[in-house]
């Protein structure tokens, strides 16, 4: 059975992002406490699902509008570094 101190150490590492998902898997196999096993399983699944959220495309009209505005917007001139030294 896994030592409770080890579980707390594991939780702390998880909190600090020092435990990779692979590392988590290894520990999961050792954990017999149902609550902790469920927590790790669902936590890992949440991260996996979030990684898979698809990105939305930029609306074409928005891209065109930005390009049009840029073409007629003057850029700010760089500051003269010599002036700053004075």
């Amino acid at each position: 059975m896994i030592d409770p101190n080890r579980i707390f150490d594991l939780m702390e590492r998880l909190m600090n992002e020092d435990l990779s998902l692979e590392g988590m898997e290894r520990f999961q196999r050792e954990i017999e406490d149902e609550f902790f096993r469920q927590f790790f399983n669902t936590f890992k699944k949440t991260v996996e699902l979030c990684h898979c959220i698809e990105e939305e495309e930029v609306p074409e009209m928005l891209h065109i509008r930005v390009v049009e505005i840029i073409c007629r917007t003057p850029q700010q001139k760089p500051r003269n570094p010599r002036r700053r030294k004075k």
Partner: protein
Amino acid sequence: MELLERNLIDKAKRGDSRAFEELLKKYETKIFNLLLRMTGNKTEAADLFQETFISAWKNLAKFRGEANFSTWLYRIAVNTVFMRHRKKKLKTVSMDAPTKTESGEIKRERGDWSTNPLATLQNDELRRKLEKSLKKMPEPYRPVFVLSDMQGIPNEEIGKILKITLPNVKSRLHRARLFMRGQLSDYFKTQ
């Protein structure tokens, strides 16, 4: 920074809007999605997107290449959102405040939904739940979560973008994930 990007930046700095458009094409999806997830509103995201790239174009001379161009751009985008929210005087959450959400702490709950066949993004309802949950996520955690878990940006880079320490990035990310997990657990309880 790759040579092609360096050349595009140099050209754009000299006023070449076509070169800037190439940079826009390269980063627009990432920036748009960051803004979309931070605001949860397409119209507002589009407005902020426009502001971000116009500001980048105007201030390109200030980019000295010390950071990655993407980091510089992300920082402008995040600042644009924060500025807009400040103007609107929206209720903000203190960065140091402890999370007091229902899922901010680990509850002793029953049910391992990780193997539930519905736990997939093919499930439209779950996908919508994730999107809704992201809108409800406390504001300080949202940009860290989007940049890390949705855009795959390393934590060190996120720290530079948001100007926060690495431990702060890690702690916000963890809290954000706990929040999402809580939301998903609630969803599966009703299934």
